């Protein structure tokens, strides 16, 4: 598997709301081989503080030259990134991990919540290209309209219809994405692609288990290296063992993981 450590130039910065930012980076080595569900490790500064890189899903590639990351400012690392300027360079490791596996013969359903929507845009774009006869269903949730609307717009530009849900009802269904899923006609051979907050992924996993659907989940954990060395990014699997989000995932068949009903 090819991986690179590159100084990549920021070519575009989009601010979707007070705390949601999307960066476009010029990185042909990475963009040309990245697959949906893979991620990069980004150094947020040149100093010793913050020390560690931050993991981000690749939210989209274009022309085999650029890729994008989407994030919400939650701490010092993302705050520093949000203050970058166009033309500056960031040190990137990637593409890392195993992405989504797609099958054009099935009904594909993308389910994203919050910043977990990021890798699903890349997946939606890829599905539109490789399975042109098979339009995927898209269900996206977020806190409110301000957060969700710009992300929904990206899917519309791909020609994909979106079923939105918000916590406050300001856009689409007032409530959870699983409420929306229950009302959709998903047939009997559906494959779900899920990324979002852990409670949401847990709910979708159990929904799929009950219906007999396949379910691929992209897991987010804290991570130091992103390449299988630190062993910090574990997710519980059966029999007391652990898988590593960076090297075994971040995309897993949800049946392989251990889920707890909260």
């Amino acid at each position, binding site marked *: *598997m*090819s*991986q*690179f*450590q590159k100084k990549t130039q920021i070519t575009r910065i989009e601010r979707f709301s007070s705390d949601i930012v999307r960066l476009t980076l010029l990185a042909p080595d990475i963009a040309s081989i990245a697959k949906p569900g893979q991620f990069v490790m980004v*150094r947020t500064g040149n100093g*010793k*503080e*913050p*020390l*560690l*890189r931050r993991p981000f899903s690749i939210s989209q590639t274009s022309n085999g030259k650029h890729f994008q990351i989407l994030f919400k400012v939650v701490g010092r690392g993302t705050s520093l990134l949000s203050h970058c300027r166009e033309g500056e360079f960031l*040190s990137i*490791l990637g593409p890392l991990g195993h992405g989504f596996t797609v099958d054009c013969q099935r009904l594909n359903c993308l389910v994203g919540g919050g910043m977990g929507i990021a890798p699903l845009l890349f997946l939606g774009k890829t599905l539109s290209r490789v399975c042109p006869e098979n339009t995927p269903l898209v269900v996206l949730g977020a806190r409110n309209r301000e957060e969700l609307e710009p992300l929904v717009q990206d899917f519309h530009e791909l020609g994909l219809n979106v079923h939105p849900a918000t916590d406050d009802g300001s856009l689409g269904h007032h409530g959870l994405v699983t409420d929306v899923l229950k009302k959709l006609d998903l047939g009997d051979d559906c494959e779900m692609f899920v990324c979002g907050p852990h409670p949401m992924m847990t709910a979708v996993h159990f929904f799929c288990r009950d219906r007999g659907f396949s379910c691929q989940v992209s897991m987010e*954990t*804290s*991570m*130091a*290296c992103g*390449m*299988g*060395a*630190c*062993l*910090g*990014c*574990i*997710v*519980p699997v059966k029999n*007391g*063992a*652990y898988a590593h989000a960076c*090297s075994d995932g971040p995309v897993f068949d949800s049946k392989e993981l251990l889920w707890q009903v909260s």
Partner: protein
Amino acid sequence: MASELNSVDLRVSIASLNLKNPVMTASGTFGYAREFEPYVNLHRLGAVVVKGISLEPRFGNPPPRIVETSCGMLNAIGLENVGVERFISEKMPALQQANVPVFVNILGDTLDEYREIASRLAGIEGVAGIEVNISCPNVKKGGVAFGTVPEMAAAVTAVVKENSTVPVMVKLSPNVTDITVIAKAVEDAGADAVSLINTLIGMAINHRSRKPALANVIGGLSGPAIKPVALRMVYQVARAVSIPVVGIGGIETAEDVLEFMLAGATAVQIGTANFVNPRASEEAVEGLARHVATESLGSIRELIGGLILP
């Protein structure tokens, strides 16, 4: 310039083992080395130290296992590893191809376990040395005592030494009152070298959730934050023992390596920096070569213990 740097003498020796340069990678930060092949020319490193191996496979601690702290990180991995048998059958063949000396870091809960692992590794092709972990803070069983009680540290050292065919380096814990006492104890028990420091025991708390940041509650602190402590302990131990000292703790660059060598280290290990910059170890080698060339030193060995005291 390139050819000039290639001819620079960076060689150092750990007992009978000759290394092409003093830069090693620290156990637990470099996987089984192959993970870093996209970034690093492994054959250019002095040696690699692989993830700690126990007699039986271990799952390790529950998550969260790591948390970033100021200029460093805490980890409580809990010694997750594939066990000595799978290490030999699955990991060692690839390492044999890598053309770099391999130190196998070993750990156990009892003297018998250390003895058993050492004897299983004896004679395995490609194992250049053993690093004995007597100092991991993250397991609840007897492991900690081996690193903190001089008699027990000596007993582990003697057992491994008796059952090994390669140089034995003992990795020391900084979580003791006087690290030189432990260093002298393992030297007397036959250790060929000591490496230090392992992580400092620390803790982080999330005041909002009122929970510890690590599921294990406590963990080991590493990274630039611990470098001054490591440098001090290397300095003290190098003056107390006559076997080679391998410096570890917050080393990122060639300048850091030079500081540890001046303090008395014969070689060093780069740890947490590998996570931030996977090329850190190779870049340190390149930086050392430039330093030796521009300072017109006969060899890098001239710097070992060369600290000028006031």
